[in-house]
């Protein structure tokens, strides 16, 4: 998409018509605004005038630069863009590494920043010794090496993977003050490339009695989850590549099960075995962990789906607005049901809404970046985003999800998981100081 940059005066910008309360502008105002508004896209510092400083060559422009490395690393000025670790000393419990959404943009997550949950550390797998076995209710059990799988017809697709417990701190009765990384950092999006599982099941043949498969990893806990065969034959993949390179160790090297749109824990990493069965295994993680308790004491079983969700990454807690003026509100929306069809953004706590621009192409079951231009008048504002998918699902309000699922009576630790599968609206309050707070509205 190309637009002709053209200068717009400050007065012209001020006169852009708001389409919703508290200064939300039309989603295409940026495209019409061109270069001047583009300056507001990347940061929260907008210089009053660009012509006030004397330009000069800096040292890096006056001498040759560094040796090009054989594997690139980001600028040393970006060293603060890191995952947060819940268990950095690898004590005998689960480790979580959360994606810094507030420091990223676009629609996919760099491999080194993709979220990771490892229940007993990342195994150090020799790819030449790794095997994938498919057995159970099949006509012919088969074993595959990485080399043989690499010869199969492959597909690539953009897909988010989200932990079923992502956003769990929002079940707290009071809003927990934390970054979008702490609240929503257990979801990431990548381009995954690999072999459709249906191709391999065609090769083994399927006993008509088979209704489920149990997938198992080669990690120390031999983590296992049961998957309905219908999903396996729909869009499941044995993923070998992540954003073009081999899967990262924390994300399942050398191969993982990819179940687009389904609970992260089911996307078995370090995949070594698939057994077709007539029953679900009722493994630890499906029988106990990912079975959220409802008010009254019953619990949901086989939640599987990651439902439609969105959250604003810019601005968000930790990013401080540097004075009134133009900013871009942007974030990510995604749904395990299909494509995002619409995202609405509010700056007045849900009283009025402006439709956000969606970054094309909009992929099914993948991050969709949404953007709305915003003219902050320096007063209090309350930002929300709400997403719709093409299956007709709409992101619930917090009141709606609490009515069905409940909330905590005490304030849990931000790293805790009082329940799972929270997909309601997130609200950020902008204070006059420019600071961003997590609130409920």
């Amino acid at each position, binding site marked *: 998409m190309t637009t002709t940059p053209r200068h717009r005066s400050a007065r012209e910008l001020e006169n852009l018509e708001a389409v919703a309360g508290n200064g939300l502008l039309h989603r295409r105002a940026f495209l019409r605004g061109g270069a001047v508004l583009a300056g507001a896209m990347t940061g929260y510092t907008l210089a009053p005038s660009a012509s006030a400083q004397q330009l000069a060559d800096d040292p890096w422009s006056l001498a040759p630069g560094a040796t090009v490395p054989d594997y690139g690393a980001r600028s040393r000025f970006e060293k603060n863009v890191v995952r947060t670790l819940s268990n950095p000393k690898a004590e005998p419990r689960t480790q979580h590494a959360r994606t810094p959404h507030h420091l990223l943009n676009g629609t996919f997550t760099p491999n080194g920043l993709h979220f990771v949950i490892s229940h007993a550390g990342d195994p150090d797998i020799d790819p030449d010794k790794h095997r994938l076995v498919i057995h159970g209710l099949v006509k012919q059990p088969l074993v595959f090496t990485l080399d*043989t799988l690499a010869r199969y017809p492959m597909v690539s697709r953009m897909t988010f993977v989200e932990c079923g417990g992502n956003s769990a701190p929002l079940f707290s009765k009071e809003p927990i003050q934390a970054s979008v990384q702490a609240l929503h950092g257990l979801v990431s999006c990548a381009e995954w490339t690999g072999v459709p599982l249906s191709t391999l099941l065609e090769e083994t043949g399927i006993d008509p009695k088979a209704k489920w498969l149990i997938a198992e990893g080669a990690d120390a806990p031999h983590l296992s989850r049961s998957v309905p065969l219908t999903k396996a034959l729909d869009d499941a993949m044995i993923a070998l590549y992540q954003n073009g390179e081999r899967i990262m160790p924390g994300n399942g090297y050398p191969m993982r099960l990819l179940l687009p749109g389904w609970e992260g824990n089911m996307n078995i990493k370090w995949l070594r075995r698939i057994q077709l069965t007539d029953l679900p295994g009722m493994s630890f993680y499906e029988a106990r962990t990912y079975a959220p308790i409802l008010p009254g004491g019953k619990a949901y079983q086989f939640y599987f789906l990651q439902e439609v969700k969105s959250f604003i990454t810019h601005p968000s807690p930790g990013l401080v607005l540097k004075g009134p003026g133009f900013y871009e509100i942007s974030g990510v929306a995604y749904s395990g049901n299909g494509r995002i069809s619409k995202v609405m953004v509010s700056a007045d706590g849900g009283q009025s809404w402006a439709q956000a621009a969606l970054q094309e192409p909009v992929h099914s079951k993948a991050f969709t970046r949404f953007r709305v231009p915003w003219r902050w008048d320096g007063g209090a504002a309350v930002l929300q985003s709400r997403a719709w998918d093409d299956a007709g699902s709409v992101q619930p309000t917090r009141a709606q999800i609490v009515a069905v699922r409940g909330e905590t009576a005490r304030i849990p630790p931000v790293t805790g998981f009082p329940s799972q599968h929270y997909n309601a609206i997130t609200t950020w309050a902008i204070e006059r100081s420019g600071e961003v707070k997590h609130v409920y509205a």
Partner: protein
Amino acid sequence: MYTRRLREFAVLLALALVSSAAFAQAPNLGKPINRAEIAAWDINILPDGAGLPPGSGTPAEGARIYAAKCSLCHGENGKGGPNAPLVGGGPIKDMESEKTIANFWPFATTIFDYIRRAMPWRQPRSLANEEVYALTAYILSLNHLIGENDTMNAQTLPKVRMPNRDGFIIRFPDKL
């Protein structure tokens, strides 16, 4: 019944479609493997007991193994330590209720399956099947879900009725 048949039909239809598409291009590079060759990895236990190996164990045998290999993390007599307690648990009321084996787990087979695949945390797959049966019996006995002299084996374990067996609602029945 009707919807189940419909679903079975949908699976068959999907298979038929996959077949016609895949026959043309499937490289058929998978290598046949037999049951004996898979045996060391063949560790899934189903809730009806399928997959349970020969052997047996009692709570008394389990208590000795527990003290040596489990109590460091899960505390004396399963009361909890750095890691989760394995005994007790109040009624499940809301999301803050602690899920325990006795108050939440729907099937006793999950205990065997999980111990055998994942425990002890630093040495998974180091326990013999007899030891896993004994530890399972010990934990069930501590929770008064079996008698203290009951033996657990491939026949008895799937018959243990867990208190919260009917405490679940399938979230998306149409996805199964």
